[in-house]
């Protein structure tokens, strides 16, 4: 893998730090008039998700990480692993609980997801921004409450629980924004 010196740092660069792949979120050049230059970098650890800042001297270099994002189709879960397929190569990948994390509750078979691979292993899963899921459990709908007013919890087919308007009923399909976990509309 390539190594990068601090003058090559840029947003999105994937590097290895303390044994984990990390992505650069923000790169800032710090240079006192007479002093030496530093590069202050906000990094996201791609395994733990932790975001923190590290400062490098101008002559430091670090190893790149073999990380890439790939569009894949979600196939199924066997309870322990979540299985995906690259629609171009038909190659299958299995993500474990740590990699799928909170995304598990949005996984619907056949949906397109972005899988982040490190050394060809899934380390994180990004669901589509919007998913359509069926309500499997919610209190009965209230008539005449279609415009505005309160909300209630609804359990979706994947197990996710979202706040929905009072008029939503079991069996309906809903459009959910996975980035906020919020109800958008009926599908």
């Amino acid at each position, binding site marked *: 893998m390539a190594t990068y010196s601090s*003058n090559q*740092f*840029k947003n999105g660069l994937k590097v290895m730090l303390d044994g984990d792949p990390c992505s650069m979120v923000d*790169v*800032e*050049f*710090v*240079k*006192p*008039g*007479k*002093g*030496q*230059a*530093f590069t*202050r970098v906000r990094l996201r650890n791609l395994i733990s998700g932790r975001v*923190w*800042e*590290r*400062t*490098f*001297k101008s*002559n*430091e270099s670090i190893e790149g990480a073999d990380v890439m994002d790939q569009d894949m189709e979600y196939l199924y879960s066997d309870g322990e692993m979540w299985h995906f397929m690259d629609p171009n190569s038909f190659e299958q990948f299995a993500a474990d609980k740590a990699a799928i994390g909170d995304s598990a509750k949005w996984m619907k078979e056949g949906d397109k997801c972005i899988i982040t691979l490190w050394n060809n292993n899934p380390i994180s899963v990004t669901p589509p921004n919007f998913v359509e899921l069926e309500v499997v459990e919610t209190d009965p709908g209230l008539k005449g409450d279609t415009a505005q007013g309160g909300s209630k919890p609804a359990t979706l087919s994947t197990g996710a629980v979202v706040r929905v308007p009072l008029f939503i009923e079991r069996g309906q399909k809903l459009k959910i924004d996975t980035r906020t976990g919020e109800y958008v509309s009926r599908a």
Partner: protein
Amino acid sequence: MSAAPDHHWEPTASIEHLRRRAAILSSIRDFFAARQVMEVDTQILSHCAVSDPFIDSIEANFNLIGSDQMQSLYLQTSPEFAMKRLLAAGAGSIYQLGKVFRNGEVSPRHNPEFTMLEWYRIGFDHWQLMNEVEALVLSVLPDLTIRRISYRDLFLNHLDIDPHQASVAQLSRLCRAHIDAPFEDDDPDTWRNLLMSHLIEPALEEGVFVYGFPASQAALARVERDETGIEVATRFELFVDGLELANGYYELTDAAEQARRLAADQQQRERLQLPQRPTEQRLVAALQQGLPECAGVALGVDRLVMLALGASDIAQVIPFAFNRA
């Protein structure tokens, strides 16, 4: 960092910003005309380069027509050496308002080619020069309040550490308590600069003159003992809202000491494997002839315009930022 050229033809600054910039440049010239300080425009292209280890010159190639011999020249990082040669030649108080170049420095606060205002006042010390810098800055930023604090008190107030007395181990430990900086460095100034740039500067509001820098950061300032007996540089810097705006000295006039510092800079460059450039021995010769007692300061004009216009990026106050130039 966005150093790659972009293909847009439009300026990076609005015409309105350039109009206000022009008014500031004009008011700077009025300021010095009213004080009988002569404008000079020394050469930007020189056979010699700056000595500071952490400032790099841009190299330019000169070919005499018909010759295949290439000569290396250097775009000046400040007009300091040339202006001091003029002072030694009897020019009196002088200022220069023009372009300088610093290799490698690109950020929202840095453009490799930028406009510097540098001036020297015969018979002034750094305290008197701070008064004049204050007057000039207030003429552009009338609502600013400016205070003065020593480098030591700044560190004591913000970080509860004496920057002159603390060891490298103490400085680096304090740094690492706040900043993830796992590298090693045995130069206390690396850690002082980290603390200054990462923890103190962002907390500085309004105008702050910092004086009494460590002797190791004297550059071309004199070194004297402060009231606690510690050797400090007769150097000051002005920060405005955390932006480093000006750097001034009660100037070193001792030729032998000047020669020693040029050599020390060169040795440090060698140790850090930084480019070796020809040093300006004519500056030493000028000091041998006699530099009048004086104080001098360099001020980043683009940054002053940024502050006046409330701009967050230097590109917004210069016609064409580096990637569009």
